[in-house]
């Protein structure tokens, strides 16, 4: 597999321009946590790293795509600030996380990652460099392209730089062990997270507040280890159905799971799994207006699609793809419906 490692935005633009002329397609990769299909030249962000502009007093930062979450955390940590990105993936890149639209566990309190993406520089399938948004926490000047490219998986172009809104770090983080995290989470004011895993329930708080009963409390945020099984999926369901989702997941014998109460995301991992059970879980999730996304395929048969059903707005999505990347140079077919 060919691999290109551009060290400037101009190089990215000419890579895309050349691929377009030569009828080739490219696949953008961050840390490589999401696998790359064959037949494409991989464009890595590994040389596009570092902070472009950090303004601690404004609580904003502009960062290059290849910067890892660990590097960003170290820099922001010096000012006790956070971009509230995924907590347990220090080697993933900021660009990869934004492209995937991935959020961390603190989403219940701070909202999804997308709500903190205030600006972006992208290189479209034409090889044009487009700026959108800015380094401002509140801004309605033009269409919100930064939010649109968040979660686009590179389908509209290469995400080169990202501007993020920051939060002060939680001053008094605490982890409470909870028999019923859904209930405890709803009794507290704005908990940071309420997680349920195969080994118990945990509620995370940052305000000074006392749980209604005598729960066991530990200092700091003690996040569950990432799921590292051969097969990993995310079931995304309306938040009120997380309890039901957990019971389905237990029934079909998950090796690991992390359910986010109040959010609706349930990540599940299996050592071994019968494909029909995943199909059943997907059917249920889609019936309730949600989805089931295959994160790691392992030994699963290729016939099981990554995303499941095609969204109702696919016509508009295909037109956006056509208008930003007419020759399908950028991660072709990465999204559902061939977008």
């Amino acid at each position, binding site marked *: 597999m060919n691999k290109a490692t551009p060290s400037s935005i101009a190089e990215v633009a000419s890579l895309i321009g050349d691929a377009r002329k030569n009828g080739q397609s490219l696949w953008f990769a961050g840390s490589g946590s999401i696998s790359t299909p064959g037949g494409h030249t991989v464009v890595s962000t590994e040389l596009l790293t570092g902070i472009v502009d950090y*303004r*601690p*007093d*404004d*609580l904003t930062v502009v960062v290059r795509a290849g910067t890892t979450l660990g590097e960003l955390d170290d820099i922001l940590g010096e000012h006790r600030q956070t971009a509230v990105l995924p907590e347990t993936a220090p080697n993933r890149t900021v660009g990869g996380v934004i492209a995937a*639209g991935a*959020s961390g566990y603190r*989403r219940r309190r701070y*909202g*999804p990652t997308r*709500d903190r993406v205030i600006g972006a520089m992208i290189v479209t399938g034409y*090889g044009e460099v*487009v700026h*959108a948004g*800015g380094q*401002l*926490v*509140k*801004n*309605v*000047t*033009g*269409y*919100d*392209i930064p*939010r*649109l490219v*968040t*979660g*686009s998986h590179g*389908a509209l172009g290469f995400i080169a730089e990202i501007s993020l809104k920051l*939060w002060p770090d939680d001053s008094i983080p605490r982890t409470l062990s909870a028999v019923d995290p859904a209930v405890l989470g709803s009794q507290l*004011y*704005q908990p940071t997270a309420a997680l349920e895993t195969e080994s118990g329930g945990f509620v995370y708080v940052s*305000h*000074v*507040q006392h749980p209604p009963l005598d729960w066991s409390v530990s200092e700091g945020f003690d996040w569950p280890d990432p799921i590292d099984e051969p097969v990993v999926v995310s079931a995304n*369901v*309306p*938040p*009120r159905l997380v309890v039901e989702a957990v019971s389905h997941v237990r029934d079909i014998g998950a090796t690991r799971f992390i359910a986010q109460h109040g*959010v609706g*995301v349930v990540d599940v991992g299996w050592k071994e799994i019968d494909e029909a059970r995943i199909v059943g879980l997907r059917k249920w*999730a889609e019936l309730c*207006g*949600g*989805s089931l*996304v295959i994160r790691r395929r392992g030994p699963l048969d290729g016939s099981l699609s990554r*995303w499941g059903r*095609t*969204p*109702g*707005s696919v016509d*508009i999505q295909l*037109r956006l793809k056509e*208008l*930003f990347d007419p020759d399908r140079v950028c991660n072709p077919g990465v*999204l*559902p419906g061939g*977008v």
Partner: protein
Amino acid sequence: MTVIEELIALLGPERVRNHPLDLVVFAKDSGVKKGEVVAAVLPETAREVAAIVRIARRYDTPIVPRGAGTGLAGGAVPAVPGLLVMLTRLNQVHEVDEIARTAWVGPGVINLDLSKQLEPLGLHFAPDPSSQQACTIGGNVATNAGGPHCLADGTTVAHVLAAELVTAEGDIITVGGEAPDQPGLDLRAVVVGSEGTLGIVTKVLVRLTENAPDVATILIGFPSIEGAAATVSGIIASGLIPAALEIMDHPMVEAVENFVHAGYPTDAGAVLLAEVTGTAASVEEGTNVIRSVANRHDAMFARVATDESERALLWKGRKAAFGAVAQTAPDYYLHDTVVPRTALVDVMAKIYEIGDRYDLMMLNVFHAGDGNLHPLIAFDAKEPGMLDRVQAAAREMVEVSVDAGGSLSGEHGIGLEKRDLMHLVFSDIDLDAQARVRDAFDDAGMMNPSTVLPEGSRCFDANGVRL
């Protein structure tokens, strides 16, 4: 048949308004731009909206959606003769999910009515623009509206999980959903704030916010606006994000006091209205931080509202500011720019200088915590040359904001008002990309054409060659 006859056949004569008086009344919103209305129609369901779009399309008549008409940027004003689709009758709260803290609501629901209805559940809709007694949720979605409390809670886009949308083709689709992270491009994110150019929103799934167990509202007086602005920058830099940080300058305090008697000090050069919410302990901690930063910047006093009625009165003063101005001059031009919060002191000084140079009466009340400025110019449009002076000064205020790393609008939108200033912040290529987003939803240019983007924004053809 004519377009009007077809619309009457669909909706009946009572819901198709084209009396000359209607056409005058609906030709503008609350800003200064006037447009030309062919007729104003009042659908009651999404299916009717879809049918209207199909009829308008057949007759090549552009469509402009409109809520309560409280917008200030001309986003609901047809710049070319168009059909105004009034969404005020889609005003049902369809269902409230107390556990998920969400509600499906019609775009015609009035912002404050929704929060009032949710009060018994201990919930509210967080975006709270100053016009919240009149403005609609649909209008909030169109402009990605803010308000004082979006400092901590985020603007409308953070509170909209899904929207039912009638497309430019007259199809009804849903963008976003009840479940998080819907696979595919997040069209919801770009529909919010699109000022009616990407389709007509006919139902909105809003995220509801729980009311805080404790709250402190603090009024702080300063000898000058510099002290107030420096205090805001200092509070943010200290690592505290309060629920709201609002500044009013001396002329605005005087106007408000004459109008609602909120107990603001008329001897202060500026006041800062700060609010912290949360648990009792975090509210106390936040209040102490604000007091200490204010003292470092020579605050004259800091008074915490002692009860709910005093708190309500302080907020009434803030939210009545624009009404108060109406008493001082027949017309006003309310501006909306945004700057990095660390640039507040410098940019405010430049804005006062511009007001003085053009000899204009200027009052300021603004969302200081977000760096969102609202210089308000009070004037009499009958005075010869006055409107030109006001608009020239307004443009300079935009330019000083942009020069400081800011942008054209923080919450009012671009509309017709700032469309031709988009080049101040975007290159031709950037604007072309925005025009492509619009074309993906509406390639025939039916939906609120002429707004948001300047003429000729689509400047590259399909081969990337400059047109």
